[in-house]
């Protein structure tokens, strides 16, 4: 009991607390009853001896030594000289509590260690059988994916197709003249210019503008020939036209 650690190898210990616990155990089984002063002396003796052998003692060992030496000095002082904030009895109790906790955990580790362990003492099924069968017949697809697939397919198809400029169907002045001549006879009175455009259904914007322009030119041409009358009541207003009412109305046109 006096010197249980004569051939101490400090690196066999997991830190100063480990050594303290070992020293305390050598004193008594019940950690609550150990002598802190004796424990401190033993610890310091061990450190001193080890320091004589090995200079490179780790800081944590030395810090613990310094703290223990300080604790011992406080414990030896008369009670009234220690301040309340550093009550040495409480500090000593805290140390024994920590030792008790470490002791408990060490026993806990031993308790675990002596249980039959899986793969070491008891064994599970070496060749477990797979009881799962994968059913891969199901399909994972939703509407979003379907749309995406359609777009992707079409985009690729369009990219593959050689570029062909869209044929422009332009309404020539000749076309407009023919149409005006053909339709004008049926008109009882004034009609807006737009009525004389070709069937509007499949014209795009450009084609529509072109047709409008050629129809206007054609109508001007026909008005010059005296075949129809043109009228526009205000700037940017609708352009009206009708079959010319020969001679007597010719003045009106000039007036307009």
């Amino acid at each position, binding site marked *: 009991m006096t010197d249980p650690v004569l051939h101490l190898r400090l690196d066999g210990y997991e830190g100063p607390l480990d050594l303290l616990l070992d020293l305390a155990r050598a004193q008594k089984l019940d950690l609550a009853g150990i002598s802190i002063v004796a424990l401190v002396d033993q610890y310091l003796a061990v450190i001193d001896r080890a320091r004589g052998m090995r200079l490179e003692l780790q800081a944590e060992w030395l810090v613990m030594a310094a703290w223990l030496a300080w604790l011992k000095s406080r414990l030896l002082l008369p009670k009234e000289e220690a301040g309340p904030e550093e009550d040495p009895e409480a500090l000593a109790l805290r140390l024994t509590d920590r030792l008790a906790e470490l002791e408990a955990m060490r026993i806990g580790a031993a308790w675990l260690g002596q249980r039959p362990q899986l793969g070491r003492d008891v*064994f*599970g*099924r*070496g*060749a477990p*059988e797979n*009881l*799962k*069968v*994968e*059913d*891969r017949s*199901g*399909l*994972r*697809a*939703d*509407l979003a*994916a*379907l*749309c995406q*697939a*359609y*777009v*992707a*397919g*079409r*985009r*690729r*198809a*369009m*990219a*593959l*197709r050689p570029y062909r400029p869209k044929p422009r169907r332009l309404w020539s002045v000749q076309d407009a003249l023919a149409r005006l001549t053909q339709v004008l006879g049926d008109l009882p009175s004034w009609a807006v210019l737009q009525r004389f455009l070709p069937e509007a259904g499949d014209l795009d914007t450009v084609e529509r503008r072109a047709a409008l322009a050629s129809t206007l030119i054609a109508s001007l041409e026909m008005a010059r020939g005296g075949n129809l009358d043109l009228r526009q009541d205000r700037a940017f207003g609708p352009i009206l036209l009708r079959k010319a009412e020969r001679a007597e109305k010719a003045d009106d046109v000039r007036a307009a």
Partner: protein
Amino acid sequence: MMSAPPDEDQPGEELPKASPEPAVSAAALRLAEALLFASDRPVAPARLQSLLAEGEDAAAVLRELGYALEGRGVVLVETGGGFVLRTAPDLAAALTRVVEVPRRLPRAAMEALAVIAWHQPCTRAEIEEIRGASLAQATLEALLDHGLVAPRGHKEVPGRPTLWGTTPRFLEQFGLKSLRDLPRREELVSGEAVAPLQATQPGDSPAG
């Protein structure tokens, strides 16, 4: 020690299940059972023999274990140079759990399906034209296998190619009440409605 083959030549004709061997101890049976259970590969009799006490014969122990397991949930099977324990074959179906792992359709199949959905009924040639890629027979078969498309008569052009359309299963798969629930294709691809499809233009028909 028994180096000779096990006692199969010994009498005992009338009793198929009786064990004419010296004696198989309960301890040997336990050990054999545990070893077979824990081993990840078939256990050769020699491996068991090395664990048995003097005078016990691995082959006899294994035979006895086989008898003991008859009618149980686990059976002894000889395979690949050794013995293994397996769940009884008649229980496999009850124990097997089916896990559904839905697959995705390959891209080509998904695109072909989309073309059929929006252009149905249409022929294979039309699908190819619209996708700008040839359609493998396997792809079409995959769609048929999943019950997503079905023949919808023939197109009255030379060669009378099959017309394809989607099925009720298709609606179900994509959560549609009817084909009208599909977004219009002009909404999906700009310019789609304006540019008429080549395949539908008279001059481009492959047969014509």
